[in-house]
């Protein structure tokens, strides 16, 4: 019995190591501890959907966005209200450190208790797109598991409300991105809720 227990403990430890392999978390930058964490959490998991989860987000994407905030190139309402000020004093080195920290954190857990029909419809959109609305399959760029690739952001496990707000911002060009605007400009509010629910559930 004792051998089994040791084996089980060893296996659990190896599993835990494997889960975090290759993602050594650097020390928490002071800026994160003192400022970023107040909205995004010390471990990159925010408590309110107004603020996105940053844990396990792509480092290059975070760098790009922080520079966009700093240089006022991203102008959706919440970016102006919050992030223009927050990112204003950040140097390139500070942006790199903050981004590396959040990128190395464990990814958020998918949301539970979502409307299963809505999630299923969202999955169809994610995997197949919507031909009638000229919406391509999201997974083509964001990856099969929505984990993102380089400057294409991770969407899995993000707050449903935040995702919906961003798609709306792309649709209305409040968040200026011609590619994303073209992808979502014909999506209905219901379809936006569906895809947001599915991504949040991952």
């Amino acid at each position, binding site marked *: 019995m004792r051998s089994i227990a040791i084996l089980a403990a060893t296996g659990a430890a190896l599993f835990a190591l494997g889960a975090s392999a290759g993602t050594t978390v650097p020390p928490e930058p002071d800026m994160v501890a003192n400022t970023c964490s107040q909205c995004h959490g010390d471990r990159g998991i925010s408590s*309110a*959907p107004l603020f996105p989860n940053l844990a396990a987000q792509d480092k290059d994407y975070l760098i790009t966005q922080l520079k966009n905030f700093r240089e006022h190139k991203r102008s959706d309402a919440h970016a102006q209200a919050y992030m223009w000020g*927050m990112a204003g004093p950040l140097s390139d080195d500070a942006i790199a450190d903050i981004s590396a920290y959040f990128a190395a954190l464990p990814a958020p857990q998918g949301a539970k208790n979502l409307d299963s029909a809505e999630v299923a419809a969202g999955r169809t959109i994610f995997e197949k797109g919507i031909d009638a609305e000229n919406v391509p399959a999201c997974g083509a760029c964001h990856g099969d598991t929505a984990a993102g690739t380089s400057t294409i952001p991770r969407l899995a496990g993000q707050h449903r409300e935040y995702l919906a707000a961003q798609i709306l911002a792309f649709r209305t060009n409040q968040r200026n991105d011609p590619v994303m605007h073209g992808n979502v400009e014909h999506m209905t509010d219901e379809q936006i809720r569906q895809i947001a629910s599915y991504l949040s559930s991952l």
Partner: protein
Amino acid sequence: MLTKSSSTGARSMWLAIAGAVSLLVLSATQAAAVPSYARQTGLACEACHTVFPELTPFGRKFKLNGYIINNREQIGDVDQAAHKNLALSFFSPVSAMVVASYTHTAKAAPDSNGLGNANNGTAAYPQQLSLFYAGEITPQIGSFIQLTYDPGSGAIGMDNSDIRYADSAATNGGKINWGISLNNNPTVQDLWNTVPAWSNPYMASAAAQTPEAATLIDQSLAGNTAGVTAYAMLNNTFYGEFGVYTSAPQGVGQPYDTAADTLISGGAPYWRFAGQWEWGDNSFEIGTYGMSAKTRVAGSCDMQTQLTDSAGNPVDVFTTSSGPCQTLSAGPTDNYLDVALDTQYQFIADHHIVTAAATWIHENSKLNSTAAAFNLANGTDVMASSTHLDTVRGSLSYFYNRFIGGSIQPFEIFGSANPLLFDSANVKPNSDGVTFEADYLPWLNVKLGLAYTAYTKFNGASRNYDGAGRNASDNNTIYTYLWVAF
């Protein structure tokens, strides 16, 4: 049984104290939103406020953590160990706010000199003019310091003040944010918009008649105390605070003597415990706060008599009493215990904001000092008895796009009859009613408000509460104001 005709120096002194407190309250309850925080952080008002001055969850964190987020260029320095030991903003965190208002009551208020009625229809410009020093002072100390010009007294005085040191520490799987606040008004340091210093109505008329009864913690000590409190928040959920207050009256010489009217004897402990939870667009808080205090009434053995000056005008003069004078350093005390419950719910979405807040303050008191002063002045032998005073206040507000909205604010004050304290015909404190307010914000730092307050009971009764035929509804008030912060 004491009657109004037995009113003497003690009674008059109490009323004078009540009047002075009312003036302090009027100036200190005028809440504030501070643009210098926006300048310091680079964040828009909406980050910290739903509609000013009500705080969002982020605004509560900003306050909890000492008002020190600073995203602007600073003059800094470090010591030999590379610890940051200076963080001065290039520009002082100074802001201002001005309020202009117009008040009209159902019937004109009685003239303060007993000569008929006052003018009905009061324009106040400014009703209030405040200057703030609000922002980071050192890397871990921040401030909210308000100086206010009060047109009633024609003077500039200290208003709400909260200077705090804040830090944080990691715990086993969690985080504690803690700090120490030096402030001058119990509850001004609080995070939620339920407590007396920061709850609806955020702006109220200085011209309208308002109920005379208020518990000690309900702004009665605002601006004339000094307190130090220590607080901690665990995992942004459980909040605890404990501190002690003592008197620090304004406008009187030091050391404090009988000119100070009333002083806290020793220290008055203050406590606050709350839990808050945030989920989705929602947040909820429930908690308790309170304080215990012993106070002494000073100089109340002096007889107040009315003489006539050379121009024939009546002048109140305090003469020396024949009995031994009751001092601020010895003798019986008025003993207060205030215990309050509060709760708040907020829903903050992109377009719609709903806030429900409520508090119930229960006060037990035994006014030994006031009774002794009364007896000295009147030759009576009244024993102080235990009394209670309760205040229940609520607010339900809705705003659309932080642009237009309003609130319903019911209130009720009730408690024991007390001839030592209350001037109404039946010497009861009971008042209740509701305020309806509509607000329009063309910009996030400009608010136009229109409020109507209806009383169903005022200072003890619905009808003839003052024994001179005045009814509660005579004090129904229309109040409109312009509030600009810049």
